[in-house]
């Protein structure tokens, strides 16, 4: 059978060229990894053209998160937070701890105590995280609130001073966000310009998704698996706090993990709060403060933070967006 060699060679060369184009087309790779840490799922996504660089960045980001968790969690005996709680007057802390506490104290002051770093004893008393939580007596709540509040802690350089010996610091409302922010810093140091760090729904979106702006679904507070809204963001933090995350019910009443420092009981004015701002730590603290303050006072506080937007779902289910929320809104 006669063969037309030039044609065959042409086809082979064409196939080789297509293969070469396929492998050298500059397509974006994505590394996506998850770990259980800080009591939740942490997911890091990084996109780029060098898989080795992406892997190294994600490894280092997870390592930094683990290091900071050991420093800031009350679940480790040797953490800064545990040492603070054990000391009678306060102690010297790591620069990272001081940075978190400085931000927390600022939000505490500006929210007039709605955000509070000193509720460690109250949270242990309620035991929302335990298998069989019970509703404490009013007397026990009053005792747990003694010596707490905005004035109970002060920071001088790296020295944290406690007003009351039994005061227990709890950074649960801000540390996770700070740790996410630091992981993002690690990604940036590795030259990553597109990625995300997501710790149980508190997240930072770096750059944009390879194909479009990041689209973030916001959990509906009362429809399991339902989406309340989606937002489109880049280089922003998105944080949601809700009464559906950790709770128990008794006599038809829901008891959840976001406490009103004024009453010592779960805050009652919101079902959920979502904040979009420039750092996850700030978003974390603001989401808690807004949840406690409720829609009217909460939106007033949010207005003091330029560039920050929020969506509050009130206790009756009505939606209260901040004026600029629509700039991020995707679809209902």
């Amino acid at each position, binding site marked *: 059978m*006669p063969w037309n060699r030039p044609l065959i060679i042409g086809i082979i060369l064409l196939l080789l060229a297509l293969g070469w184009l396929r492998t050298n087309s500059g397509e974006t790779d994505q590394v996506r990894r998850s770990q259980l840490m800080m009591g939740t799922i942490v997911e890091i996504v990084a996109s780029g053209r060098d898989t080795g660089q992406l892997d190294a960045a994600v490894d280092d980001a997870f390592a930094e998160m683990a290091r900071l968790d050991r420093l800031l969690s009350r679940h480790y005996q040797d953490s800064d937070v545990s040492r603070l709680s054990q000391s009678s007057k306060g102690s010297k802390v790591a620069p990272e701890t001081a940075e978190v506490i400085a931000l927390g104290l600022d939000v505490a002051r500006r929210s007039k105590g709605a955000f509070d770093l000193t509720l460690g004893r109250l949270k242990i008393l309620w035991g929302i995280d335990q298998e069989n939580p019970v509703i404490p007596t009013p007397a026990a709540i009053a005792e747990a609130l003694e010596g707490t509040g905005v004035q109970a802690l002060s920071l001088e350089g790296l020295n944290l001073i406690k007003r009351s010996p039994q005061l227990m610091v709890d950074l649960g409302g801000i540390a996770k966000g700070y740790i996410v922010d630091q992981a993002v810093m690690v990604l940036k140091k590795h030259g990553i310009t597109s990625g995300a760090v997501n710790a149980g729904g508190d997240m930072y979106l770096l750059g944009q998704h390879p194909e479009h702006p990041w689209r973030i679904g916001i959990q509906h507070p009362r429809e399991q698996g339902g989406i309340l809204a989606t937002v489109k963001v880049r280089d922003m933090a998105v944080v949601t706090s809700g009464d559906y995350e950790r709770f128990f019910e008794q006599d038809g009443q829901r008891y959840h993990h976001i406490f009103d420092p004024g009453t010592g009981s779960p805050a009652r004015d919101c079902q959920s709060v979502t904040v979009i701002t420039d750092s996850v730590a700030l978003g974390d603290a603001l989401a808690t403060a807004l949840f406690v303050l409720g829609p009217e006072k909460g939106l007033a506080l949010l207005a003091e933070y330029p560039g920050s937007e929020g969506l509050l779902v009130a206790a009756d289910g009505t939606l209260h967006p901040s004026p600029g929320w629509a700039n991020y809104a995707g679809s209902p």
Partner: protein
Amino acid sequence: MKTPWQLMTGGDWLVVLTLLGISVAGIAWLAAAPKGTRVVVTSGDQTCFVAGLDQFHSVDLDGPLGKTHLVIDATGAHVTSSPCPRKVCISMGPAKHSGDLLACVPNRIMVRIESPANEDVPYDLLSR
């Protein structure tokens, strides 16, 4: 003067038709392949269970505290019972979209929904 088609020999046609056949077969194979949305479960650092999201499954997943029960049905993948104290994994509800995650942190069980990159999903990440 002969046209290019007239220059084609029998061997040329054999090569062209073979390549064409391979292409058609490849397209048909891809079209017949499963949709690709998978439920991937890890326990500790090990992948312990993988299944299609479009197939019913009811499975016990071993963790350090005991068995976490996972069901995959029309609503998605969801935890129905767990030995953990707070049962947060149950209250998280179903995971059904690409990138959705569920976890039982105390029992070290993590569930992830994975899909082909071109799947049309309503969001990239979920804030909850």
